[in-house]
């Protein structure tokens, strides 16, 4: 069941400053910018991958797509783009970063998040709605999304989250799993796991709790007209709430 809208929050205004990275092959960039403009009144600054610095911002969005045609490994070439050095420094300073789908793949290849995203067990490109249970944790994102089960689309061929057993233990123990694939009631079942991800993991946060990576697409669930869920707005609210 969707719980979007159950918590009343103040919608942040256009004061927030956000950069969005664009790589050759990014294709969810405009949807993210549209979400920010339409729902939050924020004009996002697009930053081309060859940039060597970021403008002064509160947050960075790494959108989905197929950067560099997914050559070598998904996200591998993008992780070596010049702009990623600036993103690393931004992360080190505690900057808020959200990486969605290919953005998540780029974050693990950059090692800002642990693990890897491998080919789905079914070998199929999966495009469907999934229910995501929010796990327990102390990050600003966990606090903002506490207790929710969100319905959002996934669309990927390589979204099977893999990490060493010790990394999985650490992620679990430290409350760094943010989203798990679940059934509609929020139960993490084998049947609800679309791609074979370890521990049903769909999204995690960094050690400092400021970098979020997730396979589902919150920018594709921002309006009921888009297929029946606006739950993605909760993720964006959580992202914006981390700025203050």
């Amino acid at each position, binding site marked *: 069941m969707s719980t979007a809208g159950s918590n009343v929050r103040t919608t942040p205004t256009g004061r927030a400053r956000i950069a969005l990275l664009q790589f050759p092959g990014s294709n969810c960039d405009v949807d993210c910018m549209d979400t920010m403009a339409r729902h939050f009144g924020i004009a996002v600054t697009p930053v081309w991958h060859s940039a060597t610095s970021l403008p002064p911002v509160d947050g960075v969005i790494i959108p989905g797509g197929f950067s560099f045609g997914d050559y070598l490994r998904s996200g591998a070439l993008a992780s070596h783009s010049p702009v990623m050095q600036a993103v690393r420094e931004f992360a080190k300073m505690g900057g808020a970063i959200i990486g969605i789908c290919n953005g998540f793949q780029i974050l693990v290849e950059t090692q800002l998040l642990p*693990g890897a995203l491998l080919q*789905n067990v079914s070998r199929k490109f999966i495009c469907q709605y999934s229910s995501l249970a929010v796990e327990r944790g102390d990050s600003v994102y966990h606090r903002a999304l506490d207790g929710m089960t969100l319905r959002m689309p996934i669309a990927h061929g390589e979204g099977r989250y893999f990490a060493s057993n010790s990394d999985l233990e650490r992620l679990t123990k430290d409350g760094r799993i943010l989203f798990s694939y679940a059934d509609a009631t929020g139960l993490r079942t084998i049947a609800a796991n679309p791609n074979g991800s370890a521990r049903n993991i769909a999204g995690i946060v960094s050690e400092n709790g400021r970098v979020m990576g997730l396979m589902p697409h919150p920018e594709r669930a921002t309006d009921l007209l888009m297929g029946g869920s606006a739950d993605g707005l909760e993720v964006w609210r959580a992202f914006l709430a981390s700025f203050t």
Partner: protein
Amino acid sequence: MIVEYEVLVQLKKEVLDPEGRAIRETLTRLGFSGVRDVVVSKRFHLVLDPGTPSPEKVVQEIAKEFLANPVSQTLQIRRLDA
């Protein structure tokens, strides 16, 4: 003389390789019943400038830092021209 290396990158043993499994299953269907496992790897053929200092070290760095992801993959390096 040109210096050539081969780098083979494949998933670690403990990581499921869906592509390899699909190939194995198809082989079984084709009647090759004795095929126990198929591992798919990616082969990189690196050609270095002649006289590249410590080519082995350079190739190792390229392979470890870039061609393979140590989280999920292993790699093998072999010199081809020697």
